[in-house]
C-alpha cells in the first residue's frame, strides 16, 4: 500500500492552521479573564472541548470529500479505506500533540504571569505538564471522535436520511472512547459522568482507544465497501 502522504499532509496542514487560530483566540480569552476578572483555572482545559468536534468533522470530511475524490481518481474503496485508516492513525496523535503543546504554552504563560493553572475536571493526568498522559487522553478521545465521524458520514452518504439511524451507534463509539479514559462526556447542555473507572490504567486507556478506533473503522468499512458514488451531493 502506498503511504497516504498527501492525504495526511493536507489534513495536517489544515489542522495546524486551525490550531494556531484556536490558540490565539484561547490566549486572548485567558488574558481577558485575567484582566477583567479572576483567573483561577486552566482556560486551555475548557477550550479542549472544541477540538473533539473538529475531530468529528475531520472524520466526516474524510468520507464526504475524500472518498468520492479517491474513487473518481480511479482508486478502489479498499485502497481508500487503508489510506484513510493510516491517515487517522497518524493524524489523531498529531492533533493530540497540538493539544499537549497548547497546555505547555499555557503553563509557560501562567508561570510568567503568576496565575494558578488548576484543572477543573477529572483527567488521566494530574498536571498539564504530565505530557505522556495528556497526550494519551486526547489521543484516545480523538481516535473515537474521528471514527464516529467517518461512520456517521458514511451512513449519511449511503442512505441520506436513513443515516439518522447511525447516530446512536456513532454516539456509542464516542462514549466508548470517553469511557476508556474514565472522564465525563460533556456535550452542549449535557454533562454525563461516565465513572466507568475513576483512574484507568494507561494500558486500559490505550487498549480502549485502539479498540474503539478499530471498531469504528470496521463499522465504517461495512458501509463503504461497495458504496456507489452519488450523482449529486445534497
Amino acid at each position, binding site marked *: 500500500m502506498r503511504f497516504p502522504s*498527501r492525504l495526511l499532509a*493536507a489534513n495536517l496542514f489544515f489542522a495546524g492552521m486551525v490550531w494556531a487560530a484556536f490558540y490565539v483566540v484561547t490566549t486572548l480569552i485567558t488574558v481577558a479573564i485575567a484582566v477583567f476578572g479572576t483567573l483561577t483555572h486552566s482556560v486551555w482545559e475548557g477550550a479542549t472541548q472544541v477540538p473533539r468536534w473538529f475531530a468529528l468533522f475531520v472524520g466526516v470530511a474524510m468520507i464526504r470529500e475524500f472518498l468520492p475524490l479517491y*474513487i*473518481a*481518481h*480511479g482508486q*478502489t474503496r479498499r485502497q481508500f479505506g487503508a489510506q484513510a485508516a493510516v491517515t487517522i492513525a497518524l493524524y489523531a496523535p498529531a492533533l493530540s500533540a497540538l493539544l499537549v503543546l497548547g497546555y505547555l504554552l499555557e503553563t509557560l504563560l501562567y508561570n510568567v504571569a503568576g496565575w494558578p493553572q488548576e484543572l477543573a475536571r477529572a483527567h488521566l493526568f494530574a498536571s498539564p505538564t504530565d505530557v505522556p498522559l495528556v497526550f494519551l487522553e486526547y489521543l484516545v478521545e480523538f481516535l473515537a471522535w474521528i471514527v464516529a465521524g467517518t461512520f456517521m458520514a458514511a451512513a449519511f452518504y449511503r442512505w441520506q436520511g436513513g443515516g439518522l439511524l447511525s447516530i446512536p451507534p456513532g454516539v456509542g463509539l464516542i462514549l466508548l472512547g470517553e469511557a476508556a479514559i474514565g472522564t465525563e462526556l460533556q456535550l452542549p447542555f449535557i454533562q454525563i459522568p461516565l465513572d466507568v473507572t475513576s483512574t484507568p490504567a494507561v494500558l486500559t486507556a490505550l487498549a480502549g482507544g485502539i479498540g474503539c478506533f478499530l471498531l469504528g473503522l470496521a463499522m465504517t468499512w461495512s458501509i463503504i465497501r*461497495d458504496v456507489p*458514488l452519488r450523482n449529486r451531493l445534497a
Partner: protein
Amino acid sequence: MNVEVRDLRVDYGEVRAVDGMTFSLDEGKIYGLLGRNGSGKTTLMSVLAGFRRESGGTVRVGGRPVFENGKVTSEICLIRDAGETIDIDKVDDALYFAEWLRPRWDAAYADELLERFGLRRKMSVKAMSKGQRSALGVVVGLAGRSPLTMFDESYLGMDAPSRYAFYDALLADFMAHSRTIILSTHLIEEYSSLFEEVMIIDRGRLVVQEESQTLLSRGTAVTGPADRVEEFTAGLTVLNTRRLGPTASAMVYGDLDEARRRKARETGLELGPIAMQDLFVHLTEPSGDAARAVPSEDASADRSGDTR
C-alpha cells in the same frame, strides 16, 4: 482500452436504469453517448468507471472486470457534473490530489489547460462559476491521460469560446495521445464532428451503435410534392413528416439504394442529409418504442446488442 459490456443491468431499487445493454467499444476512438434525460447515460458511465456496481451482467475494460479492481480503475477517468475530482478548497488542491492519484498525470499540460481556460491555481473552487467548475473538470480529465476517459456533459455552464477551446484541446490531445474517449452530451450538433462512433440509448436500452458517418448516411430527408413523397416513402421507415402547403418533407431512416435514389430524382424529389440531432430526436421518440423506428434488420441486431 477496449470495453466489453454484456447484458448489463443497473437497478435503483424498483427502477431499472440500464436494462440488458450489450455492446463493445474499440480502443483509440472517440465515442458519442447520446440519450434523453434519464435515459441511463450517467449510470452507464458510472458503472464503466467503477463508481457503482452493476446489478447484473458483466462489464470488462481492457479484458478485466472493473468494480474494485484498482489495476483497471486507475486507468479510467470519468468527469461528472457532481464534481468529485474538484470539490475541494482550491484549484491547487484539486490538482495536488489529481497529480498524486493519477498515474499518467501530465502537470505541464494541466498548467497549459488552466491558462487556456483562464483558471488560476489560487481560485476557490466553491466560489467558481458553473462554467469554470466544468472547465476545471475538463483540465483534470484531459491532463489525467487515462486510457479510458469519459466526460459526462462536461460543457455545462461553459460559454461558447470555452466549449470550442475544450473541443480543440480534446482533439489535439487525442491525436497526440490516442485513447478511448466517451463523450456524453445534449449539444449533439456541436459535438457530432468529434464522434467517430455514436451510441444512442433510450430508457436504459441501446437503440443504435454505429460509425457516425454510417448513422448519418442512414438518414435522408425526402422533399417534394406531398403525394410523390408519400408514394416514394411507402414501405420505408419514416421518422417524421412535415408539410408546407403542397410540399412535404419526410425523414427516412434506412439505406436508400442507387435504384431508389434514381427513382427519386426521376420523380422530381430532392434527397438531402439529416442532422444527427434530428435523427437522435426521432430515434428516441417517447411516444413509441424507439426500436420500432429502426429497420427490422437493425432492430434484430440491437436486441442481440451487436449493431455493428
